[in-house]
């Protein structure tokens, strides 16, 4: 976790501050990587997103990833959502998200705190693997304490087994 941050700090000192701030990639190849970073930056600022995209883009407006019972694997239908949020975070290195993990009411509250965190970590890993920096990602688990509905049955349980992607800073 610490290594890429140190590398970026070195980059910030060595090159223009603008470059360092706007290309906060998690896996920069050390030292000889300047050209790659520049390429990435120019592609992103090539205009894919603006801050307003968070409210207007149909993919970025999706902020909830749902899970199967007692599972934390990300299902294929959420890969597009993961990818677009990762792209936005890559484009806006100042943006920050909190990944709020939740569980349905079945099982005990403390176990569900663990399960919610496991789901939050799964989304965090996926968004990170798709290009966001770990420093942009924070995971908090609410377990079963923050249900969106309180009925006892799968239609409701399915809505509660989720990770909410919450932007705490947009740029």
């Amino acid at each position, binding site marked *: 976790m610490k290594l890429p941050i140190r590398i970026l700090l070195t980059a910030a000192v060595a090159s223009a501050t603008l470059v360092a701030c706007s290309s906060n990639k998690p896996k920069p190849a050390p030292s000889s990587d300047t050209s790659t970073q520049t390429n990435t930056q120019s592609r992103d600022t090539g205009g894919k997103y603006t801050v307003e995209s968070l409210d207007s883009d149909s993919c970025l407006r999706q902020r909830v990833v749902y899970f199967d019972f007692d599972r934390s694997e990300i299902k294929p239908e959420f890969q597009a959502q993961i990818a677009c949020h990762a792209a936005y975070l890559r484009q806006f290195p100042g943006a920050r998200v909190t990944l709020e993990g939740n569980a349905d009411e079945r*099982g005990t509250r403390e*176990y569900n*705190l*663990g399960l919610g965190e496991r789901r939050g970590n799964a989304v965090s890993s996926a968004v990170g693997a798709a290009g966001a920096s770990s420093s942009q990602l924070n995971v*908090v688990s609410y377990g079963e304490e923050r249900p969106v509905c309180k009925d006892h049955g799968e239609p409701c349980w399915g809505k509660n087994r989720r990770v909410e992607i919450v932007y705490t800073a947009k740029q």
Partner: protein
Amino acid sequence: MKTKNIMSIVKLFAPILLLLSVPALAAQGLSSEVPTIDIKNGTASAIPITVVPFGFEGATLPPDTDVAGVVSGDLSRCGQFKALDKKDVIESPTRGKDIKFQTWNMLKQAYIVVGREIESPGGDVRVEFELFDVAKQQQLLGLAISSQKTGLRDVAHQVADLVYEKITGVRGAFWTRLAYVTSTGVGNNIQYALMVADSDGVNPQTVVRSREPLLSPAWSPDGHKLAYVSFERGNSSIYVQDIATGAREVVSSSKGINGAPSFSPDGSKLALTLSYGGSPDIYVMNLASREKVQLTKHFAIDTEATWMPDGQSLVFLSDRSGKPQLYQVPITGGDAARITFQGEYNANPSISYDGKHIAMVQGNGNVYRIAVLDRPTGESKAVSVGNLDEHPSFAPNGSMILYAATEGSRGVLYAVSADGRVRQRLVLADGDVREPAWSPFRQRGQ
């Protein structure tokens, strides 16, 4: 678990009346929530007992507390007794010498309790009571307890404890308290509260209120403090709070989960769940130095640690086998041994005072019930009948288990006898009630 002083009192049959003193508890923060108790199913073997309304001797008005009513309620609620309905108590002796045993024999009563409240010039009340075996016409107890008028409910619970112990041979647990969490309101107006009430649900007091979730209250062994998890700082944090003074401190607020606190039997340590190492693991914190020792290290979810009564090992939940099951690990570390093998899902351990029984949540499919694991045999048996029952908590004498159940959209509390035969519901007037924790025995002078 019997206290020596109670045993010695019991041996001193009347006319010697022993004096016990009970300081009145401050009646601060009383809420208007009034609990109602539904006895879910009685049992044919319940012992018939009459508690005659106590007399009052004094210059001022009699106290509001119906001592005999509280004693009757306690004894009926535990399922082992059936107290005669007040309207069927056709004679009102207040002293043993005035009891007409023929009357109570005819009413098929096995035991009778009579008593009186005597006001002293200073305003304190001395409660004298006697317990008789109706068939033998023999006095079993003759005791007195002094208290301020405001402490009479506490006196009544102690009377019930002494009567219960004399007849059953097991220390009573009526003079104890319950901690639980309530949530009221919906959406953005949701409000959580950690509450403490008497064992019959009366005298609810707010320990802490929060707009963020509160969970997992755990009693210190001296009954003075509660550890609990609160989200009021955004992430989960563990607080330890003094109930009487309200003073509290954050003892853990690490990155990730801070959960499942449990005091060691000597009160010096706190077992807890922390996930800053990557996944939830069990740690033991020295409360004086705040130094932590990591006890489990596994990529699975390890949580809900509970101390064995000897303080030498912990029982906890882990899903390292794929589904949550209970494991036991020595506090010196080392390998954890799995102890539950029946049921798909076993969680939320609460251990009886003798370590022989573990109450837990047992899940099969979508049904989660309270089960009691018998350690010597390894067999477990369901003692509840709901679909989403959780958070069992043994009474300190092991006779009953308190747990949370879901009825419709609200949570309610139930108490069930340890053998599962008698259940009763304890409903607070409004809101959702969950996370019950039964206090340790209280000590006189506390």
